[in-house]
């Protein structure tokens, strides 16, 4: 009863205004730096533009342009497909290897810190530097990668990695994974550390060992971390800019083989001679944002349902 009274008294002494005061700083920052820009970019996409001078309201015309007119009708699906490929590639290689490393490091214990630091080191380098570094390493002229391949008799694999459309996008998948591998590894490592020993011991007593234990005990308990990593990977892949830019330039060379949505936006906003580029680039930015936001929310919803089913 006293507790109840105390609870009521607390809610009385904590009026809405106080709550607002506490939330206000974050809310203002969010509104000024995130919400306002988002809404402004959205509004810009509904107008015609002459340089920085806003013209008349044209409804969805900019959206029609980016879906039907050259170069967007070809560049947009091409770039979008590459973003999806970057996501798939990161899920298959970066995150699975990251999980494997996390499990191995979780077991070895002693040198865990050393290896964790080593694997997360590239994470600290600017992606532009990483991209440039790898474009030097993979250079057909003086890149050590091809030189080594030739030395050890694998001459047929000494390809122009970044110049051939079939290998260039995979090179970007690899370079991205090389830089970010430490990220899933750390998150999975933390989640593994959070699995109570009692659970694993109980599973072992029940006869679950090795792969079986991993599949039936560890993996389901890692589901929240898997979800977080997947969503962040999705956002990262859809927004990829720095590494593709450093490797293939703003055109996504060769012949658009490394083009991604952010590069298309960059070209449209800054490199086209089109005086209406603010409108079309705002439309592109809006479409990209809505897609990322929609999918991220949907994924989060699906994961929440999965977790609920698992944990009750």
């Amino acid at each position, binding site marked *: 009863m006293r507790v109840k009274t105390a609870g009521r008294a607390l809610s009385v002494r904590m009026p809405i205004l106080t709550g607002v005061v506490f939330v206000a700083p974050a809310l203002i920052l969010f509104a000024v730096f995130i919400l306002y820009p988002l809404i402004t970019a959205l509004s810009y996409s509904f107008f015609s533009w002459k340089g920085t*001078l806003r013209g008349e309201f044209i409804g969805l015309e900019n959206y029609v342009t980016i879906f039907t007119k*050259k170069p967007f009708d070809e560049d947009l699906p091409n770039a979008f497909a590459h973003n999806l490929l970057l996501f798939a590639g990161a899920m298959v290689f970066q995150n699975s290897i990251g999980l494997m490393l996390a499990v191995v490091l979780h077991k070895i214990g002693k040198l865990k810190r050393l290896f964790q630091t080593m694997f997360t080191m590239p994470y600290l380098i600017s992606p532009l530097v990483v991209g440039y570094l790898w474009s030097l390493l993979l250079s057909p002229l003086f*890149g050590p990668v091809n030189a080594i391949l030739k030395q050890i008799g694998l001459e047929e694999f000494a390809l122009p990695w970044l110049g051939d459309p079939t290998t260039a996008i995979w090179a970007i998948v690899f370079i991205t994974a090389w830089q970010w591998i430490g990220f899933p590894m750390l998150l999975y490592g933390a989640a593994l550390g959070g699995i109570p020993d009692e659970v694993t011991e109980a599973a072992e007593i029940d006869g679950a060992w090795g792969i079986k234990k991993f599949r039936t005990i560890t993996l389901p308990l890692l589901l929240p971390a898997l979800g977080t990593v997947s969503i962040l990977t999705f956002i990262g892949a859809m927004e990829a800019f720095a590494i593709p830019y450093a490797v293939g330039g703003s055109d996504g060379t060769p012949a658009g083989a490394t083009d991604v949505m952010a590069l298309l936006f*960059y070209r449209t906003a800054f490199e086209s001679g089109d005086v209406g580029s*603010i409108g079309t680039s705002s439309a592109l930015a809006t479409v990209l944002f809505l897609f990322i936001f929609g999918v991220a929310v949907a994924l989060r919803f699906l994961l929440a349902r999965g977790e609920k089913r698992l944990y009750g």
Partner: protein
Amino acid sequence: MKKLNKNMWAWLTHDEHQQPKAITKGDKLRKRLSALGAIGVAALVLTGCAPSSPEPAETSTQAQSSATADPVDPVTLTIWSWRTEDVEKYNTIFDVYEAANPGVTVEFEAFLNTEYNQILATGLEGSDGPDLAMVRAYGGVQALIEAGQLLPVDGLVDTSAVEQSLLAAATGKADGKLYGVPFATQVLQVFYNKGIFDELGLTEPTTWDEFVAVNDALNASDYTPMALGAKDAWMLPIFHEIVGAARFGGPEFRAELLAGTKDFTDADYVASIGLVNDMTKYMVDDVIGIDYASSQVQFISGTAAQFPGGSFELGNFQTQAPDMDLGVYLVPPPPGAVSSKPLAAGWADGSFAINSQSENQEAALNLLNWLASPEFGQLFVNEIKQFSAIKGMDYSDPVMKEIGELFAAGPSQYINLVDMRYGTPTGSTLIGEGIQSMFLGEKSAADVAQYLQEGVSEWFTPGS
């Protein structure tokens, strides 16, 4: 595959200063490093500043009588620029103007090249913009013109000393008015290493047969005949102009293209793209994997004998390889060429223009007139060491002098930059991507031409 210098990797990493530093638009490396900054600015531009309709000041009447009048009251003129590396040199140049025009102070402010467009667009919108500004050329200046942010200067500035073909760089596409005075030009040609030519007993080719013979001889030697960064698409239309301008006819073709009597699918233009493909046998294998910076290293390190490129390479080559004896020539007309003489494609690199909201337009117009004069042109050549847009300048550097003479003897225009950057997709992007596809065996020369024509047709209407 040409023999490669085994020490090249070591050489490249030995001294970071040896890494090719590009100079102007070709500055891919610096662009890459500044990309995040540009994206940040993108966010600001797209979001931060609500646009306001500028109200161009009534200028024509007040400025009409001012072109020759010296201002009596002290006035400070601000000029914005993207040439951060040239601030001191421009200050020296404007000291000369200040001495001759008492009461006028010129303040030259430079901003990071990659962020300049956004900074200038924002500055011109508000009241704290500059009086004059360096503006980009051709398609790059149209957004400012269309937004009414620049002052039309037809009849207010004497441009008789300026190379007339370059005035298009500062002309409004929609209204045909002049909005500035071009200050720098670039010219395309083949750079070659005279030391290698002498060693192999080769001379500058003057006919197509000699050109082929020189490249065959180089191919038979340990040297790579030509360095080309085919991985960077922007380099390929430059290469196409250098090799193909005489074949498709340069200025004559341009006139017909703009009039609508010919388009890019013209047989001569297709043949000129075909020449680009024929040249790949004079490059390293997998040239599609070589980036621009690596191609510069090939030439500077002496493994490649020739570098087809723009005059903006000159300073870099002379700094990186001070001992190299550098020569330049134009590719001679091939069989079937429309032009009987070799052509040097050129373009203006930027212009000086006046802010339509400047409160000192009278003084600004006086200064702009001076910027269109031979006196400024020569100071520009001497201090900045680039090609001036003013005619008849005296170049002390022998290579610059020769490039100037080549351009004067066979002037042409880099069509895909000069005329095909007024909309999306730009001509240079299309032909760059197209040639890459051709190198990869996915497109023929005719396909590339068709791709270019279809792309620019989205916004380009001949005769307009």
